[in-house]
């Protein structure tokens, strides 16, 4: 007998049992709640995280439920937050800390890249670093240059880290639980524009709430989704769109609107990367569009595209195209000219189909 009811039937289809409707915020909170309940070594802290429950309310109620020593406010010092989390992990705890915005992680970059990422390696396993850094990421909220960044490539370039970007409440909970249970450091980037609904880039229209979306159905209890497995969100045979986070929903909208038979892959985990799913799809379609919000040059798309040409070159019928944020700081007033919306993604799909 499995300890928990299976989420996936043998067919791979989700079984709907015991489901609650959750926003992504509630799903993330539920993941921490379930983890803290099951494991007394899980602690949660960060700026405004304790009494108030975080600026996005992801940790609301955790301090009241688990006490001040397991969920607490931290000084405004990201290097301090990550540095103390590393020390706690060396002791044997499993800290799941919040960096208020991904844009604020830079003061902790030394701790992340030279410490957390390498402690297992440099000590030959004498010490390890099972920490999770949760950080709201991406644009679409008029946050300007310091509340809109997508720094995932700065993490995928660092050996020793895992990098996860969920695109919906169901995945967010399962992947966050897996991240907390993972024996290595995990950067958990939460696309903040998705917190309350599957934003498809049509900013002029109201967003459907998660309560009306299939992936807003989230089990109350414990389940986990393996890190390193992509999910095909839309089956198609004409072109493969590889993406993650907010852009999953933008790509799905673009495919529908253009009437193109696109296969949309939600990577979910950038490191480790599910190369098999990518290769299988591109080999089938022969065409590929890579989409992300982050800037173009040396972005994660560059890595994916290099892998696609390495593994699928003789199946390609068109040059691979990238749709990304521009190579500029994230602007404020021109948000929707910067954000790669369904229009740009749709044009890229058409371009690849015509090539």
């Amino acid at each position, binding site marked *: 007998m499995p300890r928990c009811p299976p989420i996936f039937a043998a067919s791979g289809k989700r079984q709907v049992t015991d489901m609650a409707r959750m926003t992504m915020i509630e799903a993330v909170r539920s993941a921490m709640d379930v983890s803290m309940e099951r494991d007394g070594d899980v602690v949660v802290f960060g700026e405004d995280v304790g009494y108030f429950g975080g600026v996005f309310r992801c940790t609301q109620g955790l301090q009241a439920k688990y006490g001040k020593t397991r969920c607490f406010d931290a000084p405004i010092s990201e290097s*301090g937050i990550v*540095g*103390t*989390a590393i020390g706690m992990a060396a002791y044997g705890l499993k800290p799941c800390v919040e960096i208020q915005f991904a844009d604020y992680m830079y*003061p902790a970059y*030394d701790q992340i890249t*030279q410490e957390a990422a390498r402690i297992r*390696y*440099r000590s*030959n396993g004498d010490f390890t670093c099972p920490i999770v850094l949760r950080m709201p990421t991406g644009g679409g909220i008029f946050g300007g240059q310091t509340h809109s960044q997508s720094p995932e490539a700065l993490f995928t370039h660092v050996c020793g880290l895992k990098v996860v970007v969920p695109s919906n409440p169901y995945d967010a909970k399962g992947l966050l639980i897996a991240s907390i249970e993972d024996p290595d450091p995990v950067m958990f980037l939460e696309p903040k524009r998705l917190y309350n609904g599957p934003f498809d880039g049509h900013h002029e229209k109201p967003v459907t709430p998660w309560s009306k979306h299939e992936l807003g159905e989230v089990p109350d209890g414990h389940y986990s989704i393996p890190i390193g497995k992509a999910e095909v969100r839309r089956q198609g045979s004409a072109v493969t769109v590889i993406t993650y986070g907010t852009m999953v929903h933008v790509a799905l909208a673009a495919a529908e609107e253009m009437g193109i038979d696109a296969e949309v892959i939600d990577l979910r985990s950038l490191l480790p990367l599910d190369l098999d799913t990518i290769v299988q799809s591109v080999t089938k379609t022969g065409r590929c569009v890579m989409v992300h919000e982050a800037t173009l040059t040396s972005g994660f798309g560059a890595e994916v595209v290099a892998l696609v040409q390495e593994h699928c070159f003789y199946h390609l019928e068109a040059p691979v195209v990238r749709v990304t944020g521009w190579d500029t700081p994230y602007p404020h007033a021109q948000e929707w000219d910067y954000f790669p919306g369904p229009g740009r993604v749709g044009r890229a799909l058409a371009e690849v189909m015509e090539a």
Partner: protein
Amino acid sequence: MTEFPLLSLHVPEPAVRPGGQPDFSNVKIAKAGAVPRPEVDVASEEIRDLAYSIIRVLNRDGEAVGPWAGLLSDEELLTGLRNMMKLRAFDARMLMAQRQGKTSFYMQHLGEEAVSCAFRKALRKGDMNFPTYRQAGLLIADDYPMVEMMNQIFSNESDPLRGRQLPIMYSSKEHGFFTISGNLATQYVQAVGWAMASAIKNDTKIAAAWIGDGSTAESDFHSALVFASTYKAPVILNIVNNQWAISTFQGIARGGSGTFAARGLGFGIPALRVDGNDYLAVYAVSRWAAERARRNLGPTLIEYVTYRVGAHSTSDDPSAYRPKTESEAWPLGDPVLRLKKHLIVKGVWSEERHVQAEAEILDEVIQAQKQAEVHGTLHAGGKPSVRDIFEGVYAEMPAHIRRQRQKAGY
């Protein structure tokens, strides 16, 4: 036109440069035994003076005097002396091994042996140090096998770290020695986190953070003090002020603050300054701080005033930036000679026994080196496998690293 003069930038300079006469007249040194010993639950604001003075126990005649004296038995002091002598002999052999090409790099402790050797005595099994590269006395004084240290230095087939780390960047959880990083100050705030975890779990263990004078300028040092102060973490915050950060004198990191210990005062952390070349004083102050931590009274900041007699590392040449005779002029003397003198004054040691002990220790170090060299040195004999490059990046090797390992032929 302005009523004020034009601005000019102040760039501090050490008192003397090469060719000059060493001068430490600016280093104010309290008389041994003169600094009071407060109760461990004292409020930091009541002992502000201790951040500006120097706690000393051994006087110039080799006697232990004052309120910080009398904590160690003769036997313990003799062990302390042997530990410092062993560290010094170990350093001398490894420096020689580096010159012989058996390793790429080495960092010695010459003149600073008392700091880590005496401190170790204040900790218990299970406590955790977050050291820098100049605290190997923590391992020596805890009887970590010298052969293991040498295996790491030689990056040989028995290197516990499999050739991944620069020489002397040891790691031993069992001996309370966190893996050394090599970049600076990061470990300081990690120590505070470890101590917070011990408090979160209602444990009894404490942590010790280590940093040098130069690296106190890093933001992680200040982050560590904020977190330690806010959460009253059971941690001892050690600053080893050996006067020199490679070629940069301590005034560049210290700035206008009178002492490094004084950095603790703004955070409400009790801060003490101690003679780092006085084994008895180092132990007494460490023990005071450890007791505070164990009683849940929170952190203590300690500045050890010492002098880096040797070069920063084997890649450094101090004659380019400080007078060659500066170490001889250092007013706090040599930690080994001072403890030796004290034990002779007490009648439990002698010049003859010292010479004999030196020979025994040297033999012990040489035997360890022979054993280590059987397993290879950096460019000769047994080596870690190329496979070891790829292992241990993650708990479980991801597919992309496996592919790269295969590409490398392993």
